[in-house]
């Protein structure tokens, strides 16, 4: 509780929170003002001395809503006071006056952008009287993180340098944003990156927003400032309609895909999202014609882009779920159908270059055997044909699904998003320093250190990383989509090669750096995948409580350059477990229950740059889940997340 008679001048540190819009859409007429002697300050759009927007490559979004709001939760102002508690209390009395508030949900759609098309040949030419078609729509519904702890941005001025301390995946973007908003040079803004945990890329752009607001408050008050934020990160809604044309032998020959991506009020990273989606939408069975139409739409919802993936997961989910659905439609075993139909084709290799398909088929064969997929699939298919499904008397209802995919990491190879990003290594006497703006996890750090130790024949204990201070580190770009694992390994190798060439010839210290440009492979493809994964998921629906839970998960991977197999399996297990948890599929553990997850990673003899399997693994779980649900419920399931209430919509297709 704030002490009485606290004057503003006597306060050392200001504590602030953001006051967001409570309306979906409308004009802002104004907001409450503070009394003259209150120990608070307000930061709003009028406080911005530089650019009122945050730029993200070619896109922008406003730091504060000034004349109108576009979504609930849009920052309108920030209030700073002597402590967090009194600021929170005072914020509840601040009223924002709105006008022309949108009330009908039909007004929700703001703008549809022109669709982006990708195709080869004409799909319609392959539609004849002897062909059939199979059409289905897949929806990956919007989702957001639950923030249980504050992200704090601390700002202060020292010797005319504006310092900001914030956990961030992209420290140089924070620096650019703060400099732009505060109308300062980049040299006069130093960002100190803190440790963070970010399963859904929560620390990609939110830190830039809160750092900019904190910086404005520090400049206005000339005091140390801490801004607290619990802003969630949002996932876009993906609606993917796929229509596959099958020839007389029921073989897919052409496919038409319509995609709608709702990116909320301010689309960001759209161009790269389209690239990632196309890579995920391309099926693994060859097609003579293919057409994708991707449409970005804006709506009165918070901006959504990165959420552990930039669309690849949702796209691959639809691809693999559709493959299973086609097999089911043809009354074939989806695993065997995949082995028969999946093969390499040039058009796909031009977008995503993968390892040889025979490796994938070997993995499929292995997983079919170990999970006894064929038997389970046959039994559950028979069960779902029964007249009385989900009977409380017979009380179980099970299903099994299978999916596979190639893992990618980072951005498309011709993307402007990473071209100039760097890593630098300095070799000193008995000391090696890595300079990068990435904040590698403990496991990634171990990987880096072991690669350097191997390349330079040194003891890993002499290797250290520089603290994330933008005045000292080089810009390695945004730390997202497992860039720190994939691309960085190749960059580190190249830097070590450069150091080796100068070692014992030039005096110490020897420094070398490399930019991501040098790691970009020869043109001809947009993504390179150096792994294959296969997964089966068996679920059960409790027919009494109508809740689903996972029974068994089998996952098999073939990856290049596996440094530590146990660590990699542990990482995959974590991703599987956390994704099952997102869907409330974790079973109650009974004594002596076997592990529900069985993972095996085989290291390929090729030693190419590893790519991450995180996004593809999530997609495989999503796809297997809808297939398993369809089998367990006897209904066509194609929307995620699937909640218990869907179970009882008898007769409706979801």
């Amino acid at each position, binding site marked *: *509780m704030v002490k009485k008679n606290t004057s503003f001048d006597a306060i050392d540190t200001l504590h602030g929170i953001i006051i967001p819009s409570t309306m979906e859409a409308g004009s802002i007429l104004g907001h409450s003002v503070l009394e003259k002697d209150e120990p608070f300050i307000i930061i709003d759009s009028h406080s911005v001395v530089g650019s009122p927007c945050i730029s993200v490559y070619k896109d922008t979004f406003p730091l504060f809503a000034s004349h109108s709001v576009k979504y609930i939760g849009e920052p309108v102002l920030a209030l700073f006071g002597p*402590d*967090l*508690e009194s600021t929170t209390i005072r914020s509840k009395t601040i009223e924002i006056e709105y006008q022309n508030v949108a009330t009908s949900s039909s007004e929700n759609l703001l703008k549809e952008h022109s669709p982006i098309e990708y195709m080869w040949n004409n799909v319609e030419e392959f539609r004849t009287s002897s062909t059939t078609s199979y059409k289905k729509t897949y929806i990956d519904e919007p989702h957001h993180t*639950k923030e*249980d*702890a*504050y992200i*704090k941005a601390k700002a202060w001025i020292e010797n005319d340098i504006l310092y900001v301390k914030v956990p961030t995946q992209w420290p140089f973007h924070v620096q650019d944003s703060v400099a732009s908003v505060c109308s300062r040079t980049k040299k006069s803004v130093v960002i100190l990156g803190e*440790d963070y*945990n970010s399963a859904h890329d929560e620390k990609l752009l939110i830190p830039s927003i809160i750092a900019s607001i904190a910086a404005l408050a520090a400049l206005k008050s000339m005091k140390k400032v801490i801004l607290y934020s619990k802003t969630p990160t949002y996932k876009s809604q993906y609606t993917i309609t796929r229509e596959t044309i099958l020839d007389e032998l029921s073989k897919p020959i052409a496919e038409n895909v319509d995609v709608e991506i709702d990116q909320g009020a301010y689309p960001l990273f759209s161009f790269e999202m389209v690239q990632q989606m196309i890579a995920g939408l391309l099926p693994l069975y060859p097609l003579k014609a293919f057409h994708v139409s991707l449409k970005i739409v804006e709506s009165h919802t918070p901006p959504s882009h990165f959420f552990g993936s930039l669309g690849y997961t949702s796209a691959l989910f639809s691809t693999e779920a559709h493959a299973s659905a086609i097999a089911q439609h043809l009354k074939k075993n989806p695993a065997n159908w995949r082995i028969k139909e999946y093969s390499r084709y040039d058009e796909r290799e031009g977008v995503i270059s993968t390892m040889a398909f025979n490796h994938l088929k070997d993995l499929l064969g292995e997983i079919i055997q170990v999970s006894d997929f064929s038997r389970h699939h046959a039994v559950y298919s028979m069960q779902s044909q029964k007249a009385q499904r989900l009977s409380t008397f017979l009380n179980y209802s099970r299903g099994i699904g299978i999916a596979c995919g190639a893992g990618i990491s980072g951005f498309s190879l011709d993307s402007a998003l990473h071209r100039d990003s760097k890593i630098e290594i300095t070799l000193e006497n008995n000391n090696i320093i890595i300079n990068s703006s990435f904040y590698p996890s403990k496991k990634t750090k171990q990987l880096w250190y072991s690669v350097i130790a191997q390349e330079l024949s040194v003891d890993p204990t002499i290797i250290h990383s520089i603290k994330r201070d933008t005045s000292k580190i080089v810009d390695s770009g945004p730390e997202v989509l497992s860039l720190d694992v994939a691309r960085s390994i190749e960059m580190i190798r190249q830097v070590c090669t450069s150091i080796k060439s100068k070692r014992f010839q030039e005096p110490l210290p020897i420094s070398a750096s490399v930019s991501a440009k040098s790691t970009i492979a020869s043109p001809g493809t947009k993504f390179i995948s150096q792994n294959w994964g296969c997964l089966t998921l068996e679920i059960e629906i409790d027919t009494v409580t109508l809740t689903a839970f996972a029974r068994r998960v089998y996952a098999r991977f073939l990856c290049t350059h596996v440094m530590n197999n*146990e*660590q990699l399996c*542990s990482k995959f*297990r*974590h991703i599987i*477990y*956390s994704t*099952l*948890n*997102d869907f409330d599929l*974790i079973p*109650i*553990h*009974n*004594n*002596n*229950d076997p*592990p*529900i*997850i069985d993972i095996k990673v085989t290291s390929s003899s090729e030693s190419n740059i590893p790519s991450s399997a995180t996004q593809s693994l999530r997609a495989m779980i999503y796809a297997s889940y809808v297939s398993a649900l369809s089998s367990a419920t006897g209904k066509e399931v194609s929307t995620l997340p699937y909640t218990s209430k869907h179970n009882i919509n008898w007769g409706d297709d979801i």
Partner: protein
Amino acid sequence: MKIECTIDKITQTLYVNSNKPLNLILNEDITSGRNLSHCDGDLCGNCIVMIDDKVVLSCLTPAFLIKGKHITTFEGFRKTRFWHDIERAYDDTHLHPCSHCFASKTLIFESLLKQIKKTEVIHHHGLDEETIVGEMRLNTCACLDAQEMISIFKAAAAYRRKRRVRGN
């Protein structure tokens, strides 16, 4: 309200509202502030501390109930010898909670280890797998699966039993 208590062995005199939750007190009212979660009713289980050696959810503990109590946060627990049993278990199994829930999950492990009866020195720790996993799921972060939690607990329990045998 004036509250006197001990936080991580440091005596504190706090002037806070009587119904202020302990996790907010620890975050805002002590000099070396902690960063405990405050999920505001979402039952995250990520604000665990110990009061008089008993593990509690600090978001559900109001200020007026901590008068005269000894509060131990994870930072304080790390300075005790009991932490080493769990630390070694993490190292031996190559498994550990993520940085987000490390503190709370560790203290939940500690609460389970406290339940190991002194008489069960050599034999089974007396806690079944269901209980271990059920208790650990108070913290909703899904970074460890059931088998991993059980492995860590068993390894830590072995070290705790040896400590009991040694009598420290």
